[in-house]
């Protein structure tokens, strides 16, 4: 039992905006009151619900490939030495599993979503998530280039496609559905991409990216998954891609969807020399679409590693930069590309990208529909979120940073004209309450009675960076895991899994396809529930 007393509480989901009140915890939950137990004096501090990262890449085959590909990053990464509480590990752009848990907790985050899991490597992902301590976690399943699903959409058999999607979600023990460059990754296996939403995907006659997006969004809604379709739009990173993004949003009218890392999809111009921000245009339309949520996918200057299932984009990035390139083919399901990248403030394109991420966060009016992410490790490492929070909370500092950008870049962005400053309550929304609501996690992102006792306590400090970089206390499931900025106790987090309803007879359809096309046997394919240490299965209606 624990009572946090004297702190200013920011709990936007329950309408609490900086009032001094006690937060009581018992049995890992927030309760109305407790008697006895430890009391934490939070006088002069601010109390927020634990952070929820709606889109990150922290586990799995692709990330491990990236770790192996970038030994230069490991050499300069922050070391985590073995202690009585902690396992050894490394920070850096692609932290090791244990360090990932420590770093998230050390920032006040208590729930993370691994945003791209192929079914074929789901076992590996779950093994790594098991070794990612403290935080609760879940995965999104890569689906928009799965050849069985695409074949069914081509044949117009949406009902069977729905059954297959449901079966695959449960087979991979994942939480939601992710669509990456719909049709583009399948086309990449023929060396092509899917640029136009209404052009049939390479190798298919009828199925188009638009059909995949609409089909999957509908299936996800019909299955009653807690989180809508998590969509990485086509044409990521390309100048002028705002047209594709707007077309995608129009396509999704009337359906729920989450648009991932919108920063990478908000560019105007015809080529790299004329690339400009279209954040204002995109935000204006987004503001009128209450069915959509998004995350920023902001970038920060410095080293990053780009990892995405969007293989054709990664090949282009490799050609542009001449850096290392990794390419993975996940048979029949998806692909993956990896390119280490350094964002530079002196680079026109990077400067525009930096501004676009912040502009989206500032121009989208409703903080409940735009969330803080960097698409870790693509835009920047997650442990740099405090730097973005500082930029959002301090317009003066932001303008100073804009003034340091190349003059050409300053003409192509609108960031200098934006005076909005995030309040602490809004920060609590974009880092915790909003993502929790969008994910359909009713016990996360707030401090109301019955919520998970995930709490972050910071010194009240006008400097956003310091405020969020060094929490005084972080409480996870009622346990104090961080105290005075140091990991004090390591606990295991849970994994959230969705259990959509499906007809078991769908296996009769899938089994022969596996025998014909997969190198893995059908019986070895699904992830056993016993493999996951602390599963929390959620049945879907």
């Amino acid at each position, binding site marked *: 039992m624990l009572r946090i007393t004297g702190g200013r509480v920011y709990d936007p989901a329950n309408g609490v905006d900086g009032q001094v009140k006690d937060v009581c915890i018992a049995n890992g939950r927030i309760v109305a009151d407790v008697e006895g137990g430890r009391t934490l004096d939070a006088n002069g501090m601010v109390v927020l619900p634990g952070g929820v990262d709606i889109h990150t890449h922290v586990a799995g085959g692709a990330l491990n490939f990236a770790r192996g590909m*970038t*030994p*230069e*990053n490991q*050499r300069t990464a922050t070391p985590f030495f073995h202690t009585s509480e902690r396992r050894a590990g490394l920070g850096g752009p692609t932290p090791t599993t244990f360090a990932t848990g420590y770093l998230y907790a050390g920032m006040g985050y208590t729930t993370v979503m691994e945003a791209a899991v192929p079914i074929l490597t789901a076992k590996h992902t779950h093994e790594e998530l098991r070794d990612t301590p403290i935080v609760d976690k879940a995965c999104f399943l890569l689906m928009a280039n799965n050849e069985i699903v695409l074949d069914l959409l081509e044949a117009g058999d949406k009902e069977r496609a729905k059954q297959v999607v449901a079966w695959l979600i449960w087979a991979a023990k994942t939480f939601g559905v992710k669509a990456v460059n719909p049709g583009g990754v399948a086309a990449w296996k023929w060396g092509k991409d899917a640029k136009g939403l209404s052009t049939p995907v390479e190798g298919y006659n009828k199925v188009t990216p638009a059909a995949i997006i609409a089909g999957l969004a509908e299936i996800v809604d019909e299955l009653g998954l807690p989180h809508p379709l998590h969509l990485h739009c086509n044409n990521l990173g390309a100048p002028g891609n705002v047209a594709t993004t707007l077309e995608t949003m129009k396509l999704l009218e009337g359906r729920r969807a989450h648009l991932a890392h919108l920063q990478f999809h908000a560019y105007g111009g015809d080529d790299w020399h004329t690339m400009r921000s279209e954040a204002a245009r995109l935000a204006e339309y987004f503001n009128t679409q209450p069915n959509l949520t998004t995350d920023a996918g902001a970038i920060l200057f410095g080293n990053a590693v780009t990892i995405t299932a969007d293989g054709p984009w990664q090949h282009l990035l490799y050609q542009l930069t001449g*850096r*290392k390139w990794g390419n993975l083919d996940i048979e029949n399901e998806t692909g993956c590309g990896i390119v280490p990248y350094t964002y530079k403030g002196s680079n026109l394109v990077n400067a525009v990208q930096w501004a676009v991420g912040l502009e989206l966060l500032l121009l989208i009016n409703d903080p409940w529909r735009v969330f803080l992410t960097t698409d870790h490790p693509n835009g920047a490492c997650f442990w740099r979120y405090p730097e973005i929070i500082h930029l959002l909370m301090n317009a003066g500092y932001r303008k100073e940073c804009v003034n340091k950008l190349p003059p050409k870049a300053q003409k192509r962005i609108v960031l200098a004209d934006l005076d909005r400053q995030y309040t602490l309550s809004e920060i609590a929304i974009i880092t915790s309450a909003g993502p929790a609501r969008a994910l359909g996690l009713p016990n996360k992102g707030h401090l109301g009675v019955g919520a998970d006792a995930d709490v972050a306590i910071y010194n009240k400090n006008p400097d956003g960076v310091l405020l969020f970089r060094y929490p005084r206390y972080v409480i996870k499931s009622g346990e104090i895991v961080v105290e005075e900025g140091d990991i004090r106790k390591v606990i295991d987090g849970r994994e959230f899994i969705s259990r959509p309803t499906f007809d078991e007879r769908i296996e009769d359809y899938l089994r022969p396809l596996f025998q014909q096309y997969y190198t893995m046997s059908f019986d070895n394919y699904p992830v056993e529930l016993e493999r996951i240490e602390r599963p929390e299965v959620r049945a879907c209606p």
Partner: protein
Amino acid sequence: MSGIDTNPTSDFAAGAATEAPTITLTLKEQLPVPLEAEVISPDVIAGLRHDAIRALPVYLGKRLRRLDDFFDVEGGIGDQIDIRGDAAKVKWIGRGMTRGRIRVSGNVGMHLGAYMKGGAIEVSGSASDWVGAEMRGGLIHIHGNAGGQVGAAYRGSLSGMNEGTILIDGSAGLEVGMRMRRGLIAVRGPVRDFAGLQMKGGTIFLCSGAEIRTGAWMVRGTIVSFTPIRLLPTFTFACTYSPTFLRLYARHLTTLGFALPREIENGVYQRYTGDTSVPGKGEILVWQPHTP
């Protein structure tokens, strides 16, 4: 071409070496396993009292130990360090050093002077692999042989040494100057395969030639060989000439105590450009005597 260090303070031959207070580390016994001793650097030791120096942390394998478990510590406090004994298993000496001087009387282990930015290191014996890896400045002079990856980039890194000078009186191993961007490496003895692999700039002198695949994937930079070497077919003959800058280099190297063979004054250089498979704009200059 680059790498001429005009700063006489980084020059052994300039001679400021001996009078300054020097801390002497004498190895007590042969080491059974490698010792990681990146604390042996003027940046760490200068200004510390003897008891603090003795307590500096080193790793014997994975075990944390004290420096004085392995070395006797004597002498005056300053930014000059003498190491005595066979330190062939002592790694990371002079790592990241920015000033001062280290003199090793004997052999030395891997990663000598890695990441160093300034100062000077002199080794009377031989050194193991990764001498001056990713160094950014300073001078390393090995009087014996060196292992592989001299001045190279560590695995995965974009570039190797990016300033500074490495002089080797003996032979050197594989991948000398791999991915180096600036700086100078001169090797008097023979060098093994892949000298100048993926080189991006700087200069390598090969006084006794090299084995195969010299300059493979080099993008820029200069490799000078004073003996005939086997070239990859992706290098194209450009011309025969006698560049003036090589005389300047020869004079500069002489001031550093590394005289080039006298007879090279009586010859010309065949210039080959490549590696065209990248494609690259590097050059390999192969000396040949004047034909009568």
